[in-house]
């Protein structure tokens, strides 16, 4: 479904080059939930950004494939479309737009994907869909609220709803519970797990989730670890335990 093979990423801080990923490889099958477990600074977020087409690996360092598509061969517009249609991001710090309401934040992805006329044509349907997703994450009573009026857990639920609005086959979650207490985090993971399975065609979504928390990783089908920019061989969650 989605795979990265031997990719490297080096950041430049002034004159200093900081290698973050060194020939990392990862693969997730369709419908599989893979947890990437690693310490802070191990390169797990960078890996997620590369898999989601937010960034590109070092030139000539390897390939990232989504199905038959080589992301390295996509231009800027191709990557924009890839992010709009194939992946949904969930971030540790929620990244909601503070001026928009819950409903508008969730609808944002469909606005970006459709353009003005397309969105207005389907507005009714899209609004219904957004409301139903918001209902699933338990925030139907918060539709008109702004992010500042929500708790951390509620914000993350909104972020999850936004990520799933365009019904992407892949969810990329970057420490989705990293900023939440254990109980709230558990609820968020439940919501993610539930919505992962709720696709339009009945199949489950592929989810790659990076985390430093083994308890969170435990919920995944498979866990890979990352250290010093290198992904270690994956094991099933049970084996990791």
């Amino acid at each position: 479904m989605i795979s990265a093979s031997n990719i490297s990423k080096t950041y430049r801080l002034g004159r200093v080059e900081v290698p973050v990923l060194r020939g990392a490889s990862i693969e997730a099958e369709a419908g599989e939930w893979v947890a990437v477990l690693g310490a802070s600074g191990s390169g797990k977020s960078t890996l997620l950004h590369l898999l989601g087409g937010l960034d590109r690996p070092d030139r000539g360092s390897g390939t990232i494939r989504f199905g038959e598509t080589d992301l390295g061969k996509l231009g800027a517009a191709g990557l924009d479309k890839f992010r709009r249609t194939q992946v949904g991001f969930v971030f540790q710090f929620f990244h909601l737009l503070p001026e928009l309401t819950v409903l508008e934040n969730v609808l944002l992805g469909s606005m970006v994907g459709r353009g003005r006329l397309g969105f207005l044509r389907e507005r009714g349907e899209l609004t219904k869909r957004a409301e139903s997703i918001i209902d699933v994450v338990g925030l139907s009573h918060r539709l008109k609220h702004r992010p500042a009026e929500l708790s951390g857990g509620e914000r993350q639920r909104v972020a999850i709803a936004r990520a799933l609005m365009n019904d992407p086959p892949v969810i990329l979650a970057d420490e989705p519970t990293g900023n939440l207490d254990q109980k709230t985090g558990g609820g968020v993971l439940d919501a993610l797990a539930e919505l992962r399975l709720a696709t339009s065609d009945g199949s489950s979504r592929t989810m790659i989730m990076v985390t430093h928390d083994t308890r969170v990783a435990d919920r995944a089908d498979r866990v890979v670890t990352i250290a010093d920019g290198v992904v270690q061989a994956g094991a099933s969650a049970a084996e990791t335990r």
Partner: protein
Amino acid sequence: MYQALLTRRYLTSKVMPLLASAAVMLCVAMELITWSVMGGFLNQLINSGRSLIGDVEISRPNTGFAHYEELTAMLEADDMIVAAAPTVDAYGLISLGGGRTSFCNIKGIEPDSFDAVTGYRESLYWKPLDEPLPKDEAREDPRLDPDQRELFAALEEFGNTLETPEQEGLTAKPLTILGLEVFSKRGLRTPAGFVAEDWTTQRELTVNVLPTDRSGGWLEPTARRFVVANEFASGVYEIDSRTLYVHLDELQDMLRMDAAEKVEPGPVGIVYGPDGEPIGFEAQDVIGVDPARVTSVLVRGVDDADLLVLRERVNEIYSEFAAKHDEVPDAQFINVLTWEDRNATLIGAIKKETALVLFIFGIISLTSVFLVLAIFWSMVSERTKDVGILRAIGASRLGVAWLWIRYGLAIGAVGTTLGIGLAYVVITNINAIHDWLGSALGISIWDPAVYYFTTIPEDFDATKTIIVASAGVLSCVIGALVPAARAARMHPVKALRFE
């Protein structure tokens, strides 16, 4: 779609966009007010000509030309010309008694023809009014007084005809119509715009002129007493403060431009009485008549006439006329000018001044571009994370750039709309504001003696508004371009990590 939504939300969420809009508002209002007042002044100056000399003036100062009745008839027979009016212009000294004297342009007119060309009767000031002036809410204008209605109706009639009333037992004196500002009665003008007291009419004044002979040589000065029958207000200070009208026949007589018999030159015999005392001169043989002369013939063309074409046509008619009379000067010795031609230096200077002021204010308004740029730069920095979020959910660089350009457009539209509103309020109330500045703060910017007109032009021109509004919006878009490009070039990952 998301750009429209975010633009709306950004506009109402922070003080920064309001500041940017306020800057644009002030720049737009400043440009529009300046252009409207200066442009209105220019238009007023150009258009005022029609109420002063008509469309075209044929003139030969001082010595004038004869057979003007024939020329007038020839002009009025032309399809392009509605009316023609002979006039005589002379400089003279007027004295109103009490040491009040003034150097004036004395204009001899035939009221009917002069009115047909210039609408002179409309400018007569003292006449009964049925409705008060717009600002005279208390109805204090003396012209509204029903008790004085008869008097003002008589004054209007005198002004209309300039004919001396026949009153038994009184020495009839010729009438004159005085410019409303000649004796500087501006102190009597109320803020509502009317003169609180009829101070001048029915008084007598003395007019002194210096006649010339046909060849331009000076003759003995002539003085005559006139009764002020009315006053006129053309709205052009320069005219209203320096002009008085008398009947054409009267001024021709004073200037010795009226018709006179011609006699054979030579020694004149003296006639003695029975007591041997000289009692007169011998009658001479009349050999002809020296026709009356005027210094100008004013011409009014049909509505919407092209003044340059009309001027050419008047020139042609004059040439035909001059060809018929040996004693009439050829076309090359005659001035055939439009009002704009006559005031070309002044109008040209004002046009240049207007352009210069607009250019300077345009440069000042450029600061709004940099202001918007600076504010947007800061806002893009503040919204860096938003850019990262939008890119993460698939927004293109162009889409992000358009968001900021659209935002600039919105700020420009809001600021421009407010600016137009502000300019409209100021322009349409500029005289009231000026009066208030004068009464409350002692500031008087508009001096009629300098700016020709007694009131500040209040024209709110649609074309100028469209041009200034477009420039206002465009400057905001230009100011937003660089920050928009910066937002579009942001790396999504760096933007998401921005703290």
